[in-house]
């Protein structure tokens, strides 16, 4: 339900409906009554908060990040800042630590500070809690979550498809035992990546070995520990898909320590952190469009803050992650690195 429908139904312009809500004195009594009646009939609740903010903007937005040490989130934040700066807005960044309670506290504090809107990255909030957020009338964007497509403003990337491509790259390189290490905390994203991993195995008729699906702390140490466990297996994997670059750095180190090379154990990460392109071996990874996700999230948020019509029409945007082949997967073809 949006303002356009109300306008159509009442046979008036969107501007008139907007005036009825903002400045009723500027509209004739009969028109006002008609519009109000249509709004009641259609059960239309205008986005009051967004409307009010147009008059009482604080020019501050909240950005909730699960882990401020994770570089890809800071790239995303940089994208948000790029747009926010053009809108003359500042950002308050909060660390949620993937913890639901922390996230709720952060959201409440930010709302009390009358922020203009919120960007929630990898939010741990339940659908019900997100519903409560609506009642607070704060425009918000969910980034890195896809279960609310079409219902909320959502910016995501094709984790599943891109992970499948990464694992299929291993299969094309004749790797037989492919393991995946996912972050134990990033539940949604981890699931998408595991789904992609499974889809690749299925597509090539490779039976899944549950022992090859490992959860770890999303850190270099976490990657090292998980790789250590995998390498000690009686039938060790010949390929490891580390679902974040940070963990992949740990995996590379652990594989080196074990005296093995990328020909023994191929490694692919996810994120495309800058470090990966200068380390040895250069990390093959899935490029996550983090900066662009930040730009896009901020754009959707400001659409909702500034434009009531858009505030009532959730937008979902998927940005493309794509495989960047370098050396750590065991690749020897230079051309693949160029494209």
């Amino acid at each position, binding site marked *: 339900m949006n303002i356009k429908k109300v306008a159509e139904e009442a046979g008036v312009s969107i501007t008139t409906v907007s005036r009825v809500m903002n400045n009723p004195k500027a509209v004739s009594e009969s028109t006002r009554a008609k519009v109000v009646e249509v709004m009641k009939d259609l059960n239309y609740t205008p986005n009051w908060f967004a409307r009010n903010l147009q008059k009482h903007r604080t020019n501050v937005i909240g950005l909730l990040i699960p882990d401020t040490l994770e570089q890809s989130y800071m790239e995303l934040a940089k994208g948000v800042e*790029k747009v926010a700066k053009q809108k003359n807005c500042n950002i308050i960044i909060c660390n949620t630590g993937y913890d639901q309670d922390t996230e709720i506290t952060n959201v409440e504090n930010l709302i009390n500070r009358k922020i203009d809107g919120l960007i929630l990255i990898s939010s741990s909030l339940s659908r019900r809690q997100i519903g409560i957020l609506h009642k607070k009338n704060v425009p918000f964007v969910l980034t890195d979550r896809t279960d609310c497509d079409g219902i909320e403003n959502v910016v995501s990337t094709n984790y599943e498809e891109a992970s499948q491509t990464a694992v299929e790259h291993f299969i094309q390189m004749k790797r037989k035992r492919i393991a995946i290490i996912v972050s134990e905390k990033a539940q949604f994203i981890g699931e998408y990546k595991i789904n992609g991993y499974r889809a690749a195995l299925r597509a090539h008729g490779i039976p899944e070995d549950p022992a090859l699906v490992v959860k770890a702390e999303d850190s270099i140490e976490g990657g090292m520990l998980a790789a250590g466990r995998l390498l000690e297996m009686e039938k060790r994997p010949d390929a490891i898909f580390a679902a974040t670059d940070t963990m992949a750095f740990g995996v590379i180190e652990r594989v080196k320590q074990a005296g093995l090379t990328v020909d023994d154990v191929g490694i692919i990460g996810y994120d495309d952190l800058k470090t990966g392109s200068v380390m040895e071996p250069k990390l093959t990874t899935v490029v996550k469009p983090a900066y662009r996700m930040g730009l896009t999230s901020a754009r959707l948020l400001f659409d909702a803050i500034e434009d009531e019509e858009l505030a009532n029409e959730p937008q979902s*945007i998927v940005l493309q992650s794509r495989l960047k082949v370098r050396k750590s997967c065991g690749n020897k073809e230079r051309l693949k690195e160029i494209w």
Partner: protein
Amino acid sequence: MKMGNLMGMPLDDPLVVAPGPWTRGIENMKEILLQEPGAVITESIVSEAYPDVRPRYSVDRWSRGVQNIRIYSGRELENWLDDLTEINQKKRYGSKTKIIASIMGTTASEIRYIAKKVEKTGVDGIELGLACPMGEGPRIVASDPALVFDFTKAVVDAVSLPVSVKLGAGISDMTAVVKAAENAGASGISAIDALRCILGIDIETGQPTLPTYGGYSGAPIRPIGLAAVAGVVQSTDLPVLGIGGITGCKSAVEYIMAGAASYGVGTEILLRGFGVIRELKDDLNDWMRERGIASSEEIRGAVLSHLHAFEEIDQNEKTAVLVEACRGFAEHSARLCADGHDGLCMAGCLCHAIQLSEDGLHIDRAKCDGCGLCVSICPDGKIQLSW
């Protein structure tokens, strides 16, 4: 009157300024609009600006082919929206030129978002730059009919403006892609985009002219563009914008005769400046007036009825003859061939049918198999094929 048509919109002139860095920013746009081309297409607008690498252009002075390694626009979406809004607020500086936004995204939802944003600035149409050969991986979107359909449909459904799809020549099944665009609701096709290239290699150092693969444009790609346009117009009724190596009036007419409803100029502006627009408009006007042609529609597609299947080509036994005596190019001859290209007819004759003697050039018609090479290579036009 020189009619043109772009995505179903009638144009005052069939000349369209093609997308590129020359259409970036208010200053360039103003300069273009003041010359009133039929339409101008912005540089491809994307959601994340790419930094411009340096250097990014290289020109082969002999062939006038250009390689560029610039990827999309270096300008942010917000800046583009401001620019286009301002240009429209200023009534396009009094110009009637249509403004088309070229846009690109990596997914259907991303490109749809950009389309909705640019629509609000008051542009007249949207072109989807799906064939850019730089930085996009080995496959470009425009080579996949299913992706072309998804991207086009997403945009067509989201905006009320006409939408066109730009194609590259490196597409194996052009018809399938054109049909996909048409089925998705496109109002026009643009062909062709730059082609993936390495302009040259320094044979002393092994260095390429520019450090990565780039887009090849300019005069040398014209034959490829003409073939693409002639192919596209035979597979769709959508109006086609013909682009690729247009350097002057003759090549503009060639594209129209290949079936283009309007023609695009880009690289020539890069090489010779914005004055090319006025020059091309005037030259085409003169050319048409001299021949009593009122509208470019009268000559559009003129080549199509002359294009034949291989087996339809006349079998004949013509051989080469000299249409005037040729003293040839030997040292004893006072007269050398034009341009200093001496003796190309003889050098290239695989039948050994051309000989030089004291009294000049002779063609042995019994040996000649009528291949026609000498006819087209003689700088003096002294040889023809004849019964």
